């Protein structure tokens, strides 16, 4: 086996490992944010007014911090992260 092919194989291995790590980080960012919101809702259920909606005004039902965090995490994941992961993988495939 030539030195060049070993180096090439090592380079490919390192690149695909970095790609996996980056994809993983990107894929985890939104769900982890949503999870933080969920944990917050469990720790401080009184911040989720939907759980006790009687006599609550519009704004108390509309803007509930733990739910806003969950929505932000999911929105980021579905509208930004997924297409970004596709582009990242495509970029790697083109580079090979």
């Amino acid at each position: 086996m030539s030195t060049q092919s070993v180096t090439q194989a090592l380079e490919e291995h390192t690149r695909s490992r970095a790609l996996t790590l980056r994809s993983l980080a990107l894929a985890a960012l939104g769900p982890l944010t949503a999870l933080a919101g969920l944990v917050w809702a469990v720790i401080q259920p009184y911040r989720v007014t939907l759980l006790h909606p009687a006599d609550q005004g519009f704004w108390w039902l509309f803007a509930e911090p733990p739910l806003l965090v969950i929505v932000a995490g999911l929105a980021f994941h579905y509208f930004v992260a997924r297409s970004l992961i596709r582009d990242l993988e495509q970029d790697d495939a083109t580079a090979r």
Partner: protein
Amino acid sequence: MQPPAEHVHWMFATGILLLGLFLLAEVIVGEEVWRRRPWRRYLWPSFAFGMGVLMWPVMTFFTNSTIHMLAHGAWAQVMMLAGAAELGLVRGKLRNPLWRLAIPFAFVVSGLAFLLHEQNPWFFQRSSFLHHLLGWLMVLGAVFPLARAWRPRWVVANAGFAMVFVVLAVALFCDRDLAPIFGHLSTLAGTPHR
């Protein structure tokens, strides 16, 4: 129909959290991949600009003191300036790299506005504590966009810039109209209503 002040803080916190996530994602994938789709390159600058626009109704309707109006007006202007400058740079309409200083400038002005419009000490109540914290966070955090303006591809500067937004969002989510902070609540502040 006007939302209570704390709800406005929480809604802006959501926008700032998203801004932080966009910037973190850009750090993770790198500028080339982030800019692969045209809509994505304009995403966070237009988001920042839009939040600046949304700050105007806050200035108009939350008129409990002149200093609050001035602070909200200053935020609206510098957020729009920072967003617009970044949009111009991304689009290629602005070529002078000095435009990159619009973001650190916005950070310093926002931080000073936070510090100057909070007239109570740190442990008066939660919102006072958070105003001081947010102010210093923005003033000291300006070092990251400043470093980013100097070296746009420096990962540490970009990651720090993104993380400042995430921490800002967390602090804004903690805000309440009237609540204790670490067990402290001044008798002059009033009674917590929730």
